[in-house]
């Protein structure tokens, strides 16, 4: 009885505390209007055509200007933007989108399915290629059609269940551009690439080269109540420390995860004026991995790769390099990507550090690298990309473990172009540290660097390891025709198991996605992967109650 009363008192206390905690939020509920939301980016985009320029900086600068047909909501389900509704045909091959009526381009022209068709055909026919969409989804499509001004159809070569989800993911989504502005012109050099005409919640105002890009509220936006802010400003701040200071100072409101150093996260977390969150960064699956050159000794020998697997201490690397913020990863399919599973692979762990060292020692001897006393067995080099705050540190920590078995690991930092050339064009490396995202689906995320026919010099990313296993190739193929989620899950589980047996690469950690913004802002994200689409719903406590 006494315990129950105590429990009740405790519960009441907790409830009061919760209410007290919720009080400030209640005081400023509901969206408010006005204000400038300022996001900082590290480098300037080349241009503001959302199809021609891909990557973080162009995406963050153009997402407010151009709408896609559909996007993913905060739970990861497709949600209409330009499309009011959509339906799947009985044979599950044709998706029919019905567009919102009365949507206008910023210059007053009507947006119709003709614009949509022209944009998709631009990628297919190569007059305006969207590199991510073209290399992943376009191959699954048989035809595009616009039977009437408000209807757009996509017919797939064969039914493919995850199509819509990947199609809606922000990295692949085709943002529709105006046909009347581009058609018949030199598209690559059209002035609209730098002073764009879109249909989104924001209109282009000005681009002060090297300084900032300013977008203003589209008063005629077809979604009522959106956007809430007056201006969305993208400011270029190349230096990492300067970005952080600008955020703390209130000169900038938002930094996406690339733009924040891990070392700064603990400080930011203790700052009440700043929100640190992984919201908006779903479906990224950015995995830091060590890839082997399988065409070259000693890594053409599976036993050597296994020995390396036994010695890779992911926990220690996470602690020392990523401040404990990352997630040790056994699979190269990230946690937020569908079909990710951490328990289907062979785990190279004998239970203790000593046992792992002994096992690695044994494997290396069997592989033909016996050790005499404390002598060095062999020396290998790890190439990594310079410029990142943690650059080279993964290798340094790993080198300590490898030293115990007489393997000397040296590391070489290279700037991005040189790094890509050495690892992906010349294939001149022993080990390389890569970061690939598994994205919205493993088919678009991991196949691109593992399938045997993608061992192509000069494309990035590609199968630079020289990995070749027909079994994996056929599993990748089979995944596109899987009849059900369960069947597809089995295929990806099998693939992950084979990868952990073949060891073409060692996943190390999945990167942390810590977006940070100033606490007076709310509803910064409107999509599960909306890290670069931040102007749509955001509002500030300092705004006014009505327009």
């Amino acid at each position, binding site marked *: 009885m006494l315990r129950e009363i105590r429990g009740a008192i405790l519960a009441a206390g907790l409830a009061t505390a919760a209410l007290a905690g919720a009080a400030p939020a209640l005081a400023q509920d509901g969206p408010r209007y006005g204000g400038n939301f300022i996001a900082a980016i590290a*480098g300037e985009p080349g*241009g503001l055509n959302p199809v021609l320029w891909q990557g973080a900086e162009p995406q963050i600068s153009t997402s407010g200007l151009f709408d896609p047909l559909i996007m993913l909501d905060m739970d990861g389900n497709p949600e209409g933007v330009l499309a009011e509704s959509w339906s799947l045909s009985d044979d599950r091959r044709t998706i029919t989108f019905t567009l919102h009526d009365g949507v206008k381009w910023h210059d007053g022209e009507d947006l119709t399915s003709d614009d949509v068709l022209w944009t998709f055909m631009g990628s297919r026919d190569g007059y305006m290629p969207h590199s991510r969409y073209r290399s992943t989804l376009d191959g699954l499509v048989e035809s595009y059609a616009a039977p009437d001004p408000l209807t757009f159809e996509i017919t797939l070569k064969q039914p493919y269940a995850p199509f819509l989800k990947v199609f809606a993911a922000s990295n692949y989504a085709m943002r529709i551009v105006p046909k009347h502005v581009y058609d018949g012109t030199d598209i690559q050099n059209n002035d609209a690439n730098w002073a764009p005409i879109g249909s989104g919640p924001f209109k282009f105002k000005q681009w002060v080269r090297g300084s*900032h890009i300013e977008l203003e509220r589209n008063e005629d936006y077809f979604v009522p109540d959106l956007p809430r802010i007056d201006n969305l400003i993208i400011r270029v701040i190349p230096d990492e420390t300067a970005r952080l*200071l*600008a955020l703390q100072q209130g000169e900038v409101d938002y930094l996406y995860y690339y733009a924040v150093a891990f070392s700064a996260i603990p400080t930011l977390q203790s700052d009440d004026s700043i929100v640190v969150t992984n919201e908006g960064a779903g479906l990224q699956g950015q995995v830091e991995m060590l890839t082997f050159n399988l065409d070259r000794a000693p890594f053409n020998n599976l036993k050597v790769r296994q020995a390396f697997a036994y010695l890779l201490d992911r926990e220690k690397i996470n602690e020392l390099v990523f401040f404990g913020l990352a997630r040790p990863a056994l699979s190269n399919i990230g946690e937020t990507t569908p079909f990710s599973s951490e328990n289907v692979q062979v785990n190279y762990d004998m239970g203790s550090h000593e046992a792992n060292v002994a096992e690695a020692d044994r494997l290396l001897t069997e592989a033909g690298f016996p050790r005499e006393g404390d002598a060095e067995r062999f020396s290998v080099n790890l190439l990594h990309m310079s410029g990142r705050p943690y650059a080279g540190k993964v290798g340094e920590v790993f080198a300590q473990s490898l030293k115990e078995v007489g393997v000397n690991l040296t590391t070489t930092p290279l700037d991005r172009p040189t790094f890509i050339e050495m690892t992906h*064009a010349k294939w001149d490396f022993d080990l390389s540290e890569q970061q690939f995202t598994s994205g919205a689906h493993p088919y678009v995320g991991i196949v691109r660097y593992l399938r045997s026919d993608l061992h192509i010099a000069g*494309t990035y990313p590609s199968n630079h390891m020289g990995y070749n296993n027909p079994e994996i190739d056929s599993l990748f193929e089979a995944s596109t025709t899987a009849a059900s989620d369960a069947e597809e899950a089995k295929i990806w589980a099998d693939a992950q198991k084979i990868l952990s047996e073949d060891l073409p690469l060692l996943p190390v950690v999945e990167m942390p996605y810590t977006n940070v913004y100033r606490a007076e802002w709310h509803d910064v994200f409107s999509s599960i992967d909306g890290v670069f689409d931040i102007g749509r719903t955001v509002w500030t406590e300092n705004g006014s109650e009505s327009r």
Partner: protein
Amino acid sequence: MSGSFVSRLSYILRRLAQVAPMILAVVTINFLLINLAPGDPATLMAGDFADLETIERLREEFGLNEPLHVQFSSYVWKVLNFDLGYSYQFRAPVLDIVLARLPNTLILLFFSFILSMILGILLAAVSARRPNRAFDNTASSIAMLGYCLPMFWLGMMLILIFSSTLRWFPTGGMYSLRAPSEGWPRMLDIGRHLVLPALAYAAYFLAMAYRLTRAKLIEILREDYIRTARMKGLSDWSVIFRHALRNALVPVIAVMGLDFGVMIGGAVVVETVFSWPGVGRLMYESILSRDYPLLLGIFVIVSFGIILVNLIADLICAMIDPRIAYG
């Protein structure tokens, strides 16, 4: 007088005639250096999900498939026609891109240069009047620091002290974006943004101007004509400013002119730390993206600037010291 004018004019023309071969040398050396550096611009332009066809199309579009000597001769021909080519990254004429950013760098350079020259020379004059005394020792030590401190570190420290802690100045950028302004308020706004980068920038050159002027002044103040001036009963300051400084400045201006190239290097650092939208940062970005035409274009324009500044420095020297002949 007219003879002097003619000789001056012919001197200027002869110096300008040297510009073309120098620019050609700059273009040749840099073109080869850049093309020898590893890294394929087409792969970088195409992004992380590119297919081979896209990469090939970009190579075709930007003439990267052509043999090196064809690329080179077509580039030189264009430069001779004042066409610096097309930026890969921005897909716009290089000249337009650089000219849009150039005023920002010039503002920064101009203020830092004036600041460092005036302050450096004044401090040197005070120091040289009584060398090795308290003022001179303090000023010399500080100048030594300014000379040694890495520019990016000094920049960071200035931000930490004057913007993060004291909140007197913004952390970077050129404009306040929270409340944009027009006209005079905008000029003031830019001025406020200019203070810290100009200080970080000026420190090195101030130290240099100070050390050069001080050494030369101390040497000159021992000369006979200075003793004569003193014996005429002129004050210390009058002797220093009217008689000694004039002669001391000749080498200072010549060296500062030569150092203009170093200043451009400094611009890369300061503009990056302070997010200043100038040419220095553009150069840094163009290296990272292997934007060859842009990088080469910046080199050409900067080399031209360096040659021009040195010419001006020579002319100023000759104005200060009439003994310098236009040889």
